[in-house]
């Protein structure tokens, strides 16, 4: 392997070097500084005689005397089932003091795209035990469903609750047996404190054994963040599609990942896209998020829950915006609901699970699931709207019907959403609470629910009581 001491320019996270052989695009590079420190990087552009290298650990300490080695291959992740239970740094090196990792395979971290023809459509319900998700925004195996949050919100608690509680109702035919559940946690630029919360939770619940943790913390090199999720997903794909695991991937915080992309783009003097983020950020994010899914003929699955903090709590910011355009829905953590003390503070109205429709219903969850969820959305939205009006005209100025919707919205938040981070609710229970709430409304108002289900599930007495009460007050 040839060594070069030909660095011509150092700029931000980039190093330019002259070469006299053909260097492949994306190839891995090692740079040894005069102090004997070895840094790793990747070829971003390769032309006759000159290459641009992005250095993961940052370029500090590099000078023109540093030596550059090209490893002749693109970045690989050593994978093995033994990774379960291990804690690695953001580049995949163990930091838990455990034994060296003996890889079974080394896989390219830039995963090739899954052929859409080879995918299997995700439709297996994952019970998370969280009503706001199971009832209203159902998660399925192989889905990518991000949490849209903002700084200081309890998104980690929600993610941990999901990781802890997630289970799949037993498959009847016993197929799928032997498919185990694994969690891969990829931290990008989060604080040590946040990371500790996750680690403690993993240890407390014994989840670490079936987890792989990748840690790039706030004080770790920013550029490394561009590799961390690829390491995570390569490991996930290996465990899912070669070792039959059902893998849940939690990536936090995607915002830090995107900041790293922006930094590299700026250093390369690229024409920036919206708000200074690179024009190719959509494609770049898609190459991560689209690695969720199921594949025909393979047992396992990769389900992704990326977490991102929206700068300024603004979901039109490019990071949440581009994410929403790629993922299969999103769960909103809402600062207002949080300050009201709701746990989890999920605002279901802007939240969405696009794969819900095919994952629920008779034989999958329960026959009335879709209708109940639809009706609760509509009713809660209506109640929410009326709250603004109440502030102006007062409750008395509203009709009896409107008042019922206001009550519905209040109880929906208090009873349906606010279940606590420790409560694990079965889906049956979630739907039953839903019916209890819907029964506050007159039957005729339930126009999104099949009449048959109203027959079966509607609580007659609840609305009768309500009605007489209402009539009494009206009298």
């Amino acid at each position, binding site marked *: 392997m040839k060594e070069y001491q030909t660095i011509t320019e150092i700029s931000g996270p980039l190093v330019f070097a002259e070469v006299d052989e053909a260097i*492949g695009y*994306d190839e891995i590079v090692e740079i040894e500084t005069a102090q004997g420190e070895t840094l790793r990087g990747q070829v971003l552009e390769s032309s006759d005689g000159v290459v641009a290298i992005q250095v993961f650990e940052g370029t500090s300490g590099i000078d023109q005397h540093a030596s550059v080695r090209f490893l002749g291959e693109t970045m690989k992740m050593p994978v093995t089932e033994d990774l379960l239970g291990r804690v690695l740094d953001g580049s995949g090196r163990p930091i838990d003091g455990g034994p060296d990792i003996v890889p079974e395979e080394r896989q390219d971290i830039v995963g090739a795209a899954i052929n*859409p*023809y080879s995918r299997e459509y995700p439709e297996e319900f994952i019970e998370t035990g969280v009503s706001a998700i199971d009832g209203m925004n159902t998660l399925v195996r192989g889905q990518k469903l991000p949490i849209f949050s903002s700084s200081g919100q309890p998104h980690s608690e929600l993610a941990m609750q999901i990781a802890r509680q997630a289970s799949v109702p037993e498959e009847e035919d016993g197929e799928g047996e032997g498919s185990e559940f694994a969690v891969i946690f990829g931290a990008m630029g989060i604080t040590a404190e946040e990371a500790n919360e996750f680690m403690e939770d993993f240890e407390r619940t014994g989840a670490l054994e079936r987890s792989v943790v990748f840690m790039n913390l706030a004080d770790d090199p920013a550029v490394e963040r561009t590799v961390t999720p690829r390491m995570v997903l390569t490991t996930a794909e290996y465990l899912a599609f070669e070792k039959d695991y059902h893998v849940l991937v939690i990536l936090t915080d995607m915002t830090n990942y995107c900041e790293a992309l922006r930094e590299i783009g700026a250093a390369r003097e690229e024409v920036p896209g919206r708000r200074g983020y690179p024009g190719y950020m959509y494609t770049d994010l*898609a190459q991560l998020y*689209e690695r969720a*899914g199921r594949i025909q003929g393979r047992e396992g699955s990769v389900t992704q829950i990326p977490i991102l903090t929206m700068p300024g709590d603004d979901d039109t910011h490019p990071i949440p915006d581009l994410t929403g355009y790629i993922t299969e829905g999103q769960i909103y953590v809402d600062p207002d609901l949080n300050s009201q003390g709701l746990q989890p503070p999920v605002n279901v109205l802007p939240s969405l699970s696009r794969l819900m429709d095919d994952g629920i219903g008779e034989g999958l969850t329960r026959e009335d699931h879709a209708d109940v969820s639809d009706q609760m959305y509509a009713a809660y939205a209506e109640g929410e709207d009326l709250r603004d009006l109440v502030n102006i*005209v007062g409750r008395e100025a509203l009709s009896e019907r409107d008042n019922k919707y206001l009550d519905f919205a209040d109880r929906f938040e208090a009873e349906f959403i606010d279940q606590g981070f420790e409560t694990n609710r079965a889906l049956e229970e979630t739907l039953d609470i839903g019916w209890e709430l819907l029964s506050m409304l007159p039957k005729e108002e339930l126009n999104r629910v099949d009449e048959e289900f109203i027959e079966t599930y509607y609580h007659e007495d609840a609305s009768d009581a309500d009605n007489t009460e209402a009539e009494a007050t009206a009298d």
Partner: protein
Amino acid sequence: MSQTAQSVREDGVIASVSGPVVVARDLDARMNDVVYVGDEGLMGEVIEIEGDTTTIQVYEETSGIAPGEPVENTGEPLSVDLGPGLLDTIYDGVQRPLDVLEDKMGSPYLDRGVDAPGIELDTEWEFEPTVEEGDEVGRGDEVGIVEETVTIDHKVMVPPDALDEGETAEIVSVESGSFTVEETVAELDNGVEIQMRQEWPVREARPTVEKKTPRTPLVSGQRILDGLFPIAKGGTAAIPGPFGSGKTVTQHQLAKYADADIIIYVGCGERGNEMTEVIDDFPELEDPSTGNPLMARTSLIANTSNMPVAARESCVYTGITIAEFYRDMGYDVALMADSTSRWAEAMREISSRLEEMPGEEGYPAYLAARLSQFYERAGYFENVNGTEGSVSAIGAVSPPGGDFSEPVTQNTLRIVKTFWALDADLAERRHFPSINWNESYSLYKDQLDPWFESEVSDDWAEKRQWAVDILDEEAELQEIVQLVGKDALPEDQQLTLEVARYLREAYLQQNAFHPVDTYCPPEKTYLMLTTIETFHDEAFDALEAGVPIEEIVDTDSAPQINRIGVQEDYVEYVDELKSEITEELRSLY
């Protein structure tokens, strides 16, 4: 994609690689030539020539490709293979069949450097001539038929470039029997041999005689579209909306239920699972016009968001060229492109790697031109062979932050004639399809009314106007309600709000996931409207007769209007409901 005999040209070598853009030296090439790049032979297209350097956009991942590797020129522009076998197939952006790729690669992942012809070369098709020896034919003329799918008879045509405009030639031989797409099925006296397979460069529109004014609707089975904002066969439409507002569901609904002969669905830079859904569903679903599986009239092009960017740029061209080919056979073709924004972004990405002068928001200056060239290829045409056919083009637009003032939405709106504006607020309250009725429009409305009036009911346009007026009035009243509450309005206005509520909940909303409601024939759309009108008329009569508004609003029958959508036997249901509403309201006074 097409694999032609390669004319010999000078090969070159790679000078630099940056993402999907490769610069080659010493390559003898013309603009838009297809080249094979590097030792692995990755497919690319020439997009810029300057002196002896040639810039190439590569349709496959370029990791590991290094300067010094060879570049080989095919000397042919990017073309598609046309012929039987296009339907019931799923392609990537450069027309490689994805099932064949899976086979050849032996993996569910898309590897690189694997090529595959666009149509099966060894399948034999039963060819039935429709001309005889001695017949004179011109360009584009049909010479025979093969049954491509249960739904579609594929017309084998004289390639449009085989003869000049107005020139004819005599058939000297033609045979029925089984042929592969490359075997000659007919011969002309000028030596031209006709095969089922044709080739056409994707960036060039296939010739036609003239564009005509479209007068037939592309009936979609979606109430708000057919009822308020119809698109014509041969028309153009844009569906802009923020994420999660229903672009894809609307496009899927159109692909399923629109009364076109052929559907070309282009998944451009969107989700893999959405394409899988189509592949899974369409063979199972019935085409409402023929009862055959939907796949039998459908061709899919899938270049998902994680697939190479350059192929995203080409996939809409691949799609529209296939659409034009079926149009030439005299079919009505509908093309959906989800999402044209991803295509525009692919242009932007390539352009910025070329260091071109950026225009608005970094998009290249030629963005508007490319968009209009694309939509111009849609239309109702007289074909070169004298038949008439159409290509309708419906593009989803994904504006950043849901803001319609951005360049792709704005440039698209300047061209298309139907605008279905999706609205995040409506989506949030699960009002689906969340098409905003105040913002949307169709410029085809008037020219399509005669069709609806003769096929459905002669007061079609009148009823639509009635609904639009009520909705307009509601919009005004809502502004007051926001300030003072509904009960502060006079009773007649409260009643108008009630009528408008039925229009919104029953008529404008339609559940794509309900087995019955998902498809609503125009007759049902019409009957639903007249039911609401019955309620309106009877309710206002009752109000005038002194019945208090609370009682009118509280009837048992009116809420049944919201159930018309899910009724299979809607004619009977509507009949009964109308008389129940009339009876109940009249009984109040």
